């Protein structure tokens, strides 16, 4: 049941916030350097995998650690904690050969959003 958050707690709330990081020992499916392909999922419910990335090929740059998975958390189907990675996609991969050659888009993808690329 929702409660009232009192003024006395505001200073602490501001300073502490609410990280979505989960202290769980979850295995990572990927490591930096891995080539991946973003899954082509199209859920009608909440996801943080934007359409512009689905089906595209990228490279894992960094493992940020373990976080709550929004797709399930949004519908109260559990936190399903998993690794989130910074993944690099070249502009040309996303937008075609007319995009600037050097440019890149980095996006944070959960384990469940990716498959290894062949």
């Amino acid at each position, binding site marked *: 049941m929702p409660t009232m958050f009192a003024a006395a707690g505001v*200073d602490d709330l*501001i300073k502490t916030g609410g*990280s*979505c990081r989960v202290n769980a020992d979850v295995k990572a499916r990927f490591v930096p350097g891995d080539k991946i392909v973003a899954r082509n999922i199209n859920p009608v419910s909440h996801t943080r995998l*934007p359409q512009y990335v689905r089906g595209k090929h990228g490279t894992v740059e960094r493992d940020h650690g373990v976080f709550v998975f929004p797709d399930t958390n949004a519908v109260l189907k559990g936190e399903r904690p998993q690794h989130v990675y910074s993944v690099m996609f070249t502009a040309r991969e996303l937008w075609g050969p007319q995009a*600037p050659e*050097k*440019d890149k888009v980095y996006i944070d993808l959960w384990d469940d959003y990716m498959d290894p690329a062949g």
Partner: protein
Amino acid sequence: MSKAHEHDHDNRSDISLRVKAVESLLIEKGLLDPAAIDKLVDAYEHKIGPHNGARVVARAWSDPSYKQRLLKDGTAAIAELGFTGIQGEDMVVVENTSGVHNMVVCTLCSCYPWPTLGLPPNWYKAAPYRSRAVIDPRGVIEEFGLKIPESTEVRVWDSNAELRYLVLPERPAGTEGLDEAALAKLVTRDSMIGVGLPLSPDRGTE
């Protein structure tokens, strides 16, 4: 959806009235403390803002070992200066160099590093920036008055998860003698989002 909801969109005074109505109802039901709203507003309107991020940048420019820590673990390094909390719990700092220019967006909503930059400007949260930043970052940056050379690599960071991004701009030329406080004055909000560069010292900050 209720008719009142549809009318909100047509009449600006309706939204103000509706917010008042919702607030007063939640207070009466013991679900909301209005003094808590006042405190939050005061903090984000008057205390928390890009001057915080500017201090982080100035420290990184002045202290190479701090800069290394900042790039390795943004959360911990920013916490050394006390800028922790809501929408900054997990920070990543990305560095501009002579060959790389970084820019931050949240295409899906408005995610932004509040403890270091305060609340985002309207343009950051609106459709034009959110849609174009990932597909035409150079065009967007040019609208802000800055032209990125073709030889520079542009990296756009889409804050779609709970990591929040801060750009560490390049230290401007001619700032060798300046202390951290003076350096911080050169660091603009837009340079930490990546749609601008820091001020140069001869242009002055007075």
